């Protein structure tokens, strides 16, 4: 702690600022005329000036769930059915080589200590957005087996239980890796298994508690199986838990599968999820949740190819060199290195799932591109996200605007029936969607087979 040097000059300065902030306080808590966020997609999103609020715009959709026979709406040429219902907060999906689908059911780790009055209020607001019925018995993986491919599982059984807020899954040979919030754990797996009872072995510990703000650890294995890539989200919105809490976070780690040794592959990625390989270029891609509370249209969440050793800005800057005034001390040296991401998905849509389409079930327009699961916004008055979009690709790069493919998670009454999270393709090439508050896995297929 340095000593105070509070001179008369500082006091005069403070008095001047007092007049200034008097005018700032006259600003409304939030404005109803939020600019349209649909021009914030693609490689060059419009970035307004940051706004700091007395009370940030907040609008959370209360969860009502799906009634019998209610389902999301799909674009023409597609159809959607529930693949499995009655799950416990399904967050991500993984298809095994024999076609069995693993549903990772997971809830946030126990609440972090209350550090300031705001944590009390935000905790209450978050509980509204995630209250999709009881989550007791979650933190497990359920196996779905659909032998004849009719979209109705013949087996729905608990595959692996008593996990610690799991999210990512990756199979390499007979080694099944589960990314719990605090470690990558390896389990033995034999094709056809419907249950794993063997204890897991920790391959690599990951940053978990005690705060664990962004707790989902997305996981993917390299094509040759020698390396694992894991997304480690930041421990705060924008360093309000102290920069010490961010050690090795807001990054994608590369883990050596043989030894468990890890290194930071890329950093400055606030909350990276949906780690996937782009099939044409072979590049690693991810979807990233950007920072909140700078306005309804800041900062756009994005998808990007992730370059080895690259720094993408968080916390010091966003979209390249746009400095965030909330971070102190600032780091101009790091800001100078920050590179902008490839493709904006609009502000606060909260992308958590990414799946490049490599199947042949869906119609031709979906054969080259990526589906993105957008969990939906809270930090703006008008909802954004709450849908699955398709981003067309060409030559390994996004080519065109995102198209709404699966909507209706948000009802006309602005209540949430469900919220899409993780995506996967099943063996037949159908798109699977984990719906955490709807406690459902949806299956999208071509309308005319």
């Amino acid at each position: 702690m340095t000593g105070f040097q509070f001179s008369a000059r500082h006091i005069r300065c403070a008095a001047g600022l007092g007049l200034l902030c008097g005018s700032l306080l006259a600003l409304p808590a939030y404005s109803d005329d939020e600019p349209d966020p649909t021009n914030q997609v693609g490689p060059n999103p419009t970035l307004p000036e940051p706004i700091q609020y007395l009370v940030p715009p907040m609008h959370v959709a209360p969860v009502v769930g799906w009634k019998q026979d209610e389902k999301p709406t799909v674009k023409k040429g597609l159809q959607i059915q529930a693949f499995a219902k009655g799950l416990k907060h399904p967050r991500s999906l993984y298809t095994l080589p024999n076609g069995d689908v693993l549903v990772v059911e997971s809830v946030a780790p126990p609440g972090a200590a209350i550090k300031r009055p705001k944590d009390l209020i935000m905790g209450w607001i978050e509980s509204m957005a995630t209250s999709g019925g009881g989550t007791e018995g979650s933190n497990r993986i359920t196996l779905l087996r659909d032998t004849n491919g009719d979209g109705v599982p013949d087996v729905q059984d608990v595959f692996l239980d008593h996990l610690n807020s799991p999210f990512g899954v990756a199979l390499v040979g007979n080694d099944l890796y589960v990314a719990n919030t605090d470690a990558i754990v390896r389990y033995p797996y034999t094709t056809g298994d419907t249950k794993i009872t063997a204890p897991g072995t920790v391959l690599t510990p990951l940053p978990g508690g005690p705060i664990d703000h962004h707790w989902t650890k997305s996981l993917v294995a390299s094509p040759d199986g020698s390396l694992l890539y894991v997304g480690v989200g930041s421990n705060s919105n924008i360093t309000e838990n102290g920069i010490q809490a961010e050690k090795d976070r807001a990054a994608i780690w590369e883990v050596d599968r043989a030894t468990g040794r890890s290194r930071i592959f890329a950093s400055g990625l606030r909350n990276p999820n949906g780690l996937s390989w782009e099939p044409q270029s072979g590049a690693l891609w991810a979807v990233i949740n950007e920072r909140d509370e700078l306005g309804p249209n800041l900062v756009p969440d994005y998808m990007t190819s992730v370059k080895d050793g690259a720094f993408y800005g968080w916390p010091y800057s966003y979209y390249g060199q746009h400095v965030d005034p909330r971070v102190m001390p600032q780091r101009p040296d790091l800001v100078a290195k920050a590179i902008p991401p490839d493709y904006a998905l609009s502000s606060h849509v909260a992308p958590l799932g990414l799946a490049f389409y490599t199947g042949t079930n869906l119609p031709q327009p979906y054969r080259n591109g990526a589906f993105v699961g957008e969990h939906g916004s809270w930090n703006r008055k008008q909802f954004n996200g709450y849908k699955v979009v398709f981003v067309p690709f060409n030559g390994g790069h996004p080519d065109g605007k995102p198209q709404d493919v699966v909507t209706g998670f948000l009802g006309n009454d602005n209540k949430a029936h469900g919220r899409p999270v993780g995506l996967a393709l099943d063996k037949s090439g159908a798109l699977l969607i984990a719906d955490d508050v709807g406690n459902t896995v949806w299956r999208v297929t071509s309308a005319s087979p």
Partner: protein
Amino acid sequence: MAVANACFIGALLTDLTYWRTAEMMWADFSAWLLFAGLVVGVLWVIAALVDLFSGRISRARGPVWSYPLGSLVALVVSFFNALVHSRDAWTSVVPTGLTLSAIAVVVLLLAGLLGWSTGRSQMEAVE
């Protein structure tokens, strides 16, 4: 009210410390001090209104009101200050939060000086 005002003065000190150190712990202290000061301050306002309307304190005129009025102004300023302090990290304090903390303390000092200089302090009895 002395408790609430002590909280607001404390918040200025922790704000200053955060300004010099950028250590989030001090900003968190400020947020709690403002929160506690607001809770106690609102209770004081309710108690004072009850006293006023039940005639337990006389409706005297003049500088005798300077300290409670000053405290009320500090309370209102601190309400907005608590909102500013609910922002994340640096700008929850610098510059607006720190400025509001300073304004609240300056108002309290002026009110205290004004009350003291006229030698009237009956209001102390009702706190």
